[in-house]
């Protein structure tokens, strides 16, 4: 099965995802713009049990504007890259594609 590795800028925090994502999407919301610093967020969602995470990470919880579930973003405390987030989709974990 395909296995892909995603890491933060400094390489300290990484995730390994087995198999293909169930959904890949981009999002132009202002929260994604602020988090990425770019013009849109870009994420690949995997079943959470197919993803293993290694390294230290800091959690940032953001309440959704649309009244939905809170999102939990995990970033590297050394370089600031947000590598994945959870919440919103039960059982799924979203990895930042970049």
């Amino acid at each position, binding site marked *: 099965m395909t296995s892909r590795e995603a890491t933060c800028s400094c390489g300290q925090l990484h995730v390994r995802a087995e198999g293909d994502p169930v959904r890949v999407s981009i999002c132009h919301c202002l*929260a994604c713009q*602020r988090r990425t610093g770019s013009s849109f967020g870009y994420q690949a969602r995997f079943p959470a049990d197919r993803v293993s995470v290694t390294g230290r990470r800091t959690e940032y919880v953001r309440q959704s504007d649309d009244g939905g579930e809170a999102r939990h973003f995990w970033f590297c405390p050394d370089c600031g890259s947000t590598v994945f987030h959870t919440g919103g989709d039960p059982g799924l974990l979203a990895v930042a594609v970049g």
Partner: protein
Amino acid sequence: MATREASCSCGQLSLQAEGDPFHVGICHCLACQRRTGSAFGMQAGFDAGQIEVTGRSTEYARTSDEADRKVHVFHFCPACGGTVFYTEPDEPDLIVVMVGAFADPLFPPPVESGYEARRHPWVGLPDTMERDDLWGQVLPLYEAGDYAAAADRGRELLGGQPENGRLAYNVACCESLAGRTTDAVEHLRIAVGGGGDAVRTMAANDQDFDPIRDDPAFREIVGS
């Protein structure tokens, strides 16, 4: 003059920018992809005097893979991870702000797209944008110290993009080092015309212009 505010996701780290950026670009390099988590980075260059920063930030310094080995220091919020701006220790007058941090879809659009070789192929861009880094074609000659050949090649590329201020600036550097004062002044004038005071300051502090520093036309352009 427009005042804009940029901030991280949680709002703890923010900055105010007075006036417009002198340059807005996107970059498809893998480092920008990792930092943003998105398909490309999008950055706006300001003169440091235009920016006032508020809040705590953690610094992450990264040395460029490029031959210049330039150090970029990224400033991110320790509470939410949002990178709001970066600085370059070699360029104390420069602050580059992540455009997404302005959360403003009407922010001045990017005029340049760098590292096209790393572009995710589904990303389409308008034809009006300067594509790829033409300077990359000149850089090896510049680094080899063959300034005359670098100036020749740069001039040729500028023929197709006479308004490309960044290329004009770099070509002016080559011409200065090659002893072509008149050409250097002409191209620096184009660069300053597009980039304003920030480019003036950059030129005033750039050692590549040491050979023409006492030229009256150069002094007039940089205002020294």
